[in-house]
């Protein structure tokens, strides 16, 4: 069986593509899925750092493309999971060192060794974006509830529609208390504007800064609320019908609201 090849993209930089890729990949691996995360951001590699694997890199994607090593030699296995690896981007090269066909061939090379290939797309809609998308059959668009991020997401969705790619949306960095007071667009607003099916909504949470600082996937933190959210997204991705829990639920809301007040 071939792997599901999914690109995570946003157009705008800094909305949380890499963090989402890392944590969603970890959540899928925690569920026993075989996952490879591909960093398509050649020249600005970060996926390794977010997952705490930066010291273990030997080869990278460009070296695979150039035939300097085997694909499996470049894969770094995350020892905290049974079945999670990453394929790091080259740091000292630029995006034009790989063509769309070459990138797609590398991703296809992962097909029978795993269930999911998640491709962390670079910001922008140029060469790096086209490469990342060429390797994928599905897309997850990550956005925040801000005007610039949504406009860029809309542009990217237009590009993905040209390729008839199924698209799902993750709204990241939601601040529930601002949504409540009307000072932030709600997830409903964002979904309505972009017209894409919702896969997940992630609150703006300090925990993600903390876990990223440590290079630790948040799904490994015991009783983490954020970890739970990523696990729900993973289940939805697998086709499960997981309800979007509301902040009104007792306990959760108070915790969220209290935390945001503190932050």
């Amino acid at each position, binding site marked *: 069986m071939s792997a599901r090849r999914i690109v995570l993209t946003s157009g705008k930089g800094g909305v949380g593509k890499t963090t989402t890729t890392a944590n969603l990949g970890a959540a899928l691996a925690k569920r026993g899925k075989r996952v490879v995360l591909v960093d398509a951001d050649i020249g600005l590699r970060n996926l390794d750092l977010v997952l705490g694997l930066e010291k273990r890199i030997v080869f990278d994607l460009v070296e695979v493309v150039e035939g300097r090593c085997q694909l499996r030699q470049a894969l770094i296995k995350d020892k905290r999971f049974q079945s999670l690896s990453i394929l790091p981007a080259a740091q000292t090269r630029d995006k034009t060192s790989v063509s769309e066909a070459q990138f797609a061939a590398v991703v296809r090379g992962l097909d029978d060794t795993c269930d999911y290939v998640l491709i962390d797309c670079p910001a922008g809609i140029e060469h790096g974006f086209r490469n990342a998308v060429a390797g994928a059959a599905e897309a997850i668009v990550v956005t925040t509830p*801000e*005007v610039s991020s*949504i*406009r860029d997401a*809309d*542009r990217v969705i*237009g590009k993905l529609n040209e390729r008839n790619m199924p698209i799902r949306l993750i709204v990241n960095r*939601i601040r*529930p208390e*601002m*949504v*409540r*007071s*009307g*000072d*932030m*667009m*709600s*997830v*409903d*607003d964002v979904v*309505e*504007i972009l017209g894409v099916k919702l896969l*997940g*909504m*992630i*609150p703006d949470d300090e925990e993600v800064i903390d876990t990223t600082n440590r290079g630790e996937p948040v799904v490994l933190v015991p009783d983490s609320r954020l970890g739970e*959210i990523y696990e*729900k997204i993973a289940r939805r991705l697998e086709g499960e019908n*997981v*309800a*979007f*829990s*509301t*902040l*009104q639920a007792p306990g*959760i*809301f108070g915790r*969220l609201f209290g935390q945001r007040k503190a932050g």
Partner: protein
Amino acid sequence: MIEFFKRLFAPEPSGATARERLRLVLLSDHLSLAPDVVEALRADLIAVISKYVEVDEANCDVSFEQQDQAVAVLANIPILAMRDRRPPPPPGTSGGPKPDSPPRGDALGATYALADESRHPARSAVGQVQRKRRRRKRVAGQSQPAMG
């Protein structure tokens, strides 16, 4: 207290402003990304107007402009002459006015007036694309933002 003054001076929460601004800018983005659609609209507009008046096709201009509350279709279509609206003569008879012949008699004054106006064509908004505020009615219990 600060919150109170904030509310006092901010008539509309900024989330709603963001939503409206985005709707407009995205509509405008989509139109500028679809030159074929704009071209087809231009051709159709000219075709419809040409049924009634003779237009200066070479100098027609159809564009979209973002205004305060809407994106507007701006059509600048100079009119050269009025079309003869009298029904064409029954087939087989001769001597009747041809449909495309220039207007005569009492129609002339009106034609001149139109042609004159066409020298200073005012940019007229042919249609305003108004979007209804599609605020969803929220079911009680879902009014809070959801997480998950």
